[in-house]
Every structure is written in structure tokens, then in C-alpha cells.
């Protein structure tokens, strides 16, 4: 396996030793990215618990926009397969969903199941438009625009202006689907959108569907829930998992000088954030390069080099992906396990040392 310490190629053991040394002396280590298979995410939480690290994900901005709205108003959601099979009206909220592969599937097929089977599928758009039959530019921003639709759906606004027409089409649909990208729409917008789906569901069927998540965030959310009872951004500094989306925001911690070591986990490739270079870091990445971090260990990509459980976008579930091109690259879970063992043997710093 390939590994680098401070840019120089080295062996696996030396790299793990260097990574362990870097993490052992840190006061507030952060494990970020978490773009990996379930086994590696579990190993990352195990390591975090052992060294008192906090955890953050690659796409946490969008993930927390979703979770924040979910925790307050709940959610009416559907799956991509159900949307393709049943939706006769699709509202595309914002620009990002137009780039999603799901949209092509929706455009290419007609509904085949349920009450709308055989009918044409209509596309409506809010914000950006590509090929929709009805589109409203929404100058006031997406949260406001979704709110206007919701006001029409609740009969608090009336008339045949564009948003009124869009709301009427949704209300007349057999099975409406509202497509959005959580990071683009934001928490306020998602909460509005869920309210719109709920208002429409008083008389017909209407569901939301999020597209375009980053990394393996959708796998991390259930794994962190079953391991800690909390959402992903948890810290183990005080031995118990504490959930605090503001305090454990990795980018904020680095900017404020609170984090003094970062382990970046991206066995499933994901863009590396800028702040990573501002702090001593260890990178466990599939597409490794010497300069990615102070210590770089190349790991196998789940679903390619080795099998692993990943989020399946198509089926909206965690599924096992066998290795498509098996190799002898170590899995991220193995490397994290070795790190945890090394740190347990070396005994991380205790809480009773003097501080200031």
C-alpha cells in the first residue's frame, strides 16, 4: 500500500505510527469527511470514542439542513424508484436537481404504477429552469418562493399568477414529487417544502425527494444514530457522545484554532476542503497523493478494491457493493482499527493533566 509522511513515501507501519503520534498529542482531534463504507464509519466512531475526538462529515451543511427541518416538522419523503414509477407531476426546486441523474430517468420514462400509470409526466420549476412546462424564477430566493406556493396550496393566496398555476398543478396531480438539493435549499426552505407537501397531502399525494448529497453522509446519519443515538456531529471529549452541530463543525473548529489535528477519511472520493491544509492532518483516501496531508495513507475504495456497505442512491437504502476490481489495498476500516489499537496501547492523554 502507498503511504507518505510529510511528502516522503514510506511503509504502512511507519505511516500508521506517524498518524498515531500526531493524534496522540492532540488536545481536540477531529475526524472529518467520513465518506466511506459502513465498516469504516463504525471504525471512525470507535477511534473517536477512544481518543476523545469529534466527528464531522463531508456534506454536513446539507445534511444538517435536512436534519434540522426533520427534527422540527418531520418529513414526507419518497424514494427514487417510487418517483420514477408513480409521479405524474415533478416540481424541481432550484438549480442543483437539474444536474441529478435521477432527473434524466424521470424525463425518459412515464409513470407505470399507481393511479397515474400511463399518463404524461409534467415538469414544473422553481428558480432555475431547463425543460419545465411551467417555471417561476423566484427572485426572492427559494425559501420565500416555496412559502408562496405553500400559501397558494393553503388557499391563503389566490389568483392565476405563475406560482398560483404551479400550486394548482401540484394540487391536481395524482402523485406529486418535489425534488430539491438540501444544501441549496437550506433548512428554512426545506421546512417550508415539507409544509407544502403536507398541505398538498390533505387532498392528494405529494412527497419530497432530496437529491445530490455529498460523500456518504446518508450512510453516516443512520450509523451515528445507532452508535451514539445522535446525528453525525458529535464529540467525545468528555467521554460521552455530545451532539452539538455548531461546536463540532470541523471547518469552524479549524478556523477558530480549536482543532489541533484532523483525520480526513475519504475512501469514497470527495472534494478535499481548503481548511484541511491549515492544521496537522492525516488523510485516509482512495485517490491518494503525497501532498494531501502531513500523513497520507492510501486505502481501498469500497465497491471497487473491496466489498462494503454503502448508501445506494437508487434504492434509497444501505446495500452491499461487491468489489468490482479487487485489489490488495487495505480497507479504511482496517487502517482505522490499527490506529485505534496503536493509540490504545500508547494511552492517549488523560483528562487530569494541567491545562492553562
Amino acid at each position, binding site marked *: 500500500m502507498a503511504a507518505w509522511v510529510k511528502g516522503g513515501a514510506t511503509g504502512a507501519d511507519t505511516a500508521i505510527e506517524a498518524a498515531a503520534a500526531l493524534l496522540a498529542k492532540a488536545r481536540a482531534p477531529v475526524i472529518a469527511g467520513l465518506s466511506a463504507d459502513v465498516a469504516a464509519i463504525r471504525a471512525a466512531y470507535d477511534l473517536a470514542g477512544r481518543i476523545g475526538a469529534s466527528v464531522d462529515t463531508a456534506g454536513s451543511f446539507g445534511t444538517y439542513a435536512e436534519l434540522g427541518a426533520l427534527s422540527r416538522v418531520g418529513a414526507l419523503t419518497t424514494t427514487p424508484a417510487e418517483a420514477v414509477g408513480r409521479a405524474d407531476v415533478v416540481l424541481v426546486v432550484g438549480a442543483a436537481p437539474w444536474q441529478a441523474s435521477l432527473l434524466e430517468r424521470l424525463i425518459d420514462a412515464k409513470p407505470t404504477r399507481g393511479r397515474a400509470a400511463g399518463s404524461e409526466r409534467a415538469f414544473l420549476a422553481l428558480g432555475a429552469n431547463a425543460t419545465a412546462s411551467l417555471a417561476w424564477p423566484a427572485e426572492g430566493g427559494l425559501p*420565500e418562493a416555496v*412559502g*408562496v406556493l405553500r*400559501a397558494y396550496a393553503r388557499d391563503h393566496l389566490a389568483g392565476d399568477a405563475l406560482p398560483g398555476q404551479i400550486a394548482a398543478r401540484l394540487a391536481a396531480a395524482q402523485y406529486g414529487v418535489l425534488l430539491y438539493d438540501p444544501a441549496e435549499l437550506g433548512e*428554512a426552505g426545506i421546512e*417550508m417544502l415539507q409544509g407544502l407537501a403536507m398541505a398538498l397531502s390533505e387532498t392528494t399525494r405529494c412527497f419530497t425527494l432530496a437529491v445530490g448529497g455529498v460523500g456518504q453522509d446518508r450512510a453516516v446519519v443512520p450509523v451515528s444514530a445507532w452508535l451514539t443515538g445522535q446525528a453525525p456531529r458529535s464529540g467525545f471529549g468528555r467521554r460521552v457522545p455530545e451532539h452539538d452541530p455548531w*461546536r463540532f463543525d470541523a471547518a469552524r473548529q479549524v478556523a477558530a484554532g*480549536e482543532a489541533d489535528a484532523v483525520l480526513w477519511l475519504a475512501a469514497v472520493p470527495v472534494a478535499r476542503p481548503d481548511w484541511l491544509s491549515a492544521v496537522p492532518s492525516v488523510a485516509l483516501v482512495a485517490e491518494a497523493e503525497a501532498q494531501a496531508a502531513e500523513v497520507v495513507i492510501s486505502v481501498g475504495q469500497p465497491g471497487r478494491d473491496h466489498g462494503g456497505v454503502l448508501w445506494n442512491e437508487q434504492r434509497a437504502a444501505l446495500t452491499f457493493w461487491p468489489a468490482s476490481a479487487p485489489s490488495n489495498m487495505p480497507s479504511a476500516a482496517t487502517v482505522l482499527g490499527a490506529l485505534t489499537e496503536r493509540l490504545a496501547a500508547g494511552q492517549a492523554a488523560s*483528562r487530569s493533566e494541567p*491545562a492553562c
Partner: protein
Amino acid sequence: MSTLTLRAAPPERIDFLNINPLALRGLSQGEAERLEVGTTRTGVRLGDCFAVALDGSDSLTIEGGHERLDRVGASLSAGTIRVTGDVGQRLGAGMAGGSLTVTGHAGPYAASGATGGTITVEGDAGDYAGGAVYAAKAGLDGATLIIRGTAGAHLGDRMRRGTIVAGRAGAFAGSRMIAGTLAALAVGDHPGLGMRRGTLVIGAHGRMAQTFVETGAHDLVFLRLLATALRGLSPEHAALLGRPLRRYSGDLATIAKGEIWVAA
């Protein structure tokens, strides 16, 4: 008056949930200095960062604040805390009574979930002042929050009860408000977006969402009562109610029982 004097910038975020006059009253100097206030695996004890001087009274002064001091006065039920300097997130979160004053700036989520007492920030406050933390049912819930400087975005987000008075505020002031009163001299875009009930009194605003409808000018007895109530907190804000007012009703996306009063 007990005093904690900051000796050096804290090396990590400090949690002051358990540091209040009531909790310190029964402790000896040594016991207080050994209280764990750190948040990382290394940990920090109160005496590591602060010089402690206790006198068993119900008022506490923190000389020298820092933006890493989290949850100052959180869950305070009685007594007085005064901070000379800045504080971090969740100032006075869940506070039930007493009085809390910060002479510098406060981080995000000040007064979140506070049910009673008065919280005064003489400088600026971060985002979500008087707003709800993740998964909380409500933001400010009965307490009084006064921000003399500028508040960040989402001031009073999901607030349920109580009063907020702020100099200026960012975007989404009073968003998703459940009930309560918020007064500000100027706010950013989208005041009150998603509000259900509640009253906003503002001097100037950015973009008003299309889901708010103007319902004309009114002269209500309630407004004079509100002015009397606000005068004790901030005469400048009470004066807003003396000007001609336009009333907006909304947010029409929700049950639309909220109102925004805009002074001309």
C-alpha cells in the same frame, strides 16, 4: 460579590453550565478551583484559567470574558452574573430567572430556550440569538433578551414567548416565530419568514417576503401598552411605536396570525 478573573485565554472551549452563584455558594475556594469546565479529553479546571474569589453572595462577576466561554449563565434560576468581556455560544440557554449581563459580544444561540429572567448583551450577538438550537422545540421561551448592538441572522428563530429588543439584526429576524415580541431598529431580508404568531416591531427592513400582506395603518390601544412595556427596556424601541405604523400580516404560508409593524 464573587469574582472569577480570567488569567489566560482558555486553550479549549469552556463549559460554564455548572458555574453560577448558587452552585458556587456551598463550595470552598479549593473545591471551586477543581471544578471541571473543559470540553476536550485533556480538560480544564476552573482554577487553571480563572483566579477564584468567593464570598457566598448571589452575584458573580466574571472579569475578562472570552469567545470560548460557552453556556455562561445557562439554566440560571436566581442571582446575578455579570461578564466583563465576550462570551461564546448559548449564553443563558434555558435560563429560568435572575439577571445576566455581558459587556462584550455573545456567540450564537444566546438565550436559547430561556424561560425567565433578563439577559443583556451590550455588544453584538451571533446568529440565532433568542433562537432554537438543533431539535429544540422553541427558542426564547419567556425571558427578556436585550441586545444593544447588532444581532446576527435568525434573531428570535422559533421563539415562543418573551421579549427580544435588538439594535440591528440580520436576515430572517423572527423566522418561524411561534409567539412573543421582537423589536429591532432595523432588520435584514425576510423578517418573520415562516412565522405563525407573534409581533415584530421594526424601524427598517430589507426584502419583505410576498407571503406578508399589508393590512393598513392602525391605532390600537395594544400598541400604547406595548410602548409602555418597551420603554423600561429601551426608550429608543418604544419610540418606534410613536411613529406612524404600517401593519403586515403573515406568514401566509403558515397559519398567518403573526404581525409585523413597520415604523414609517
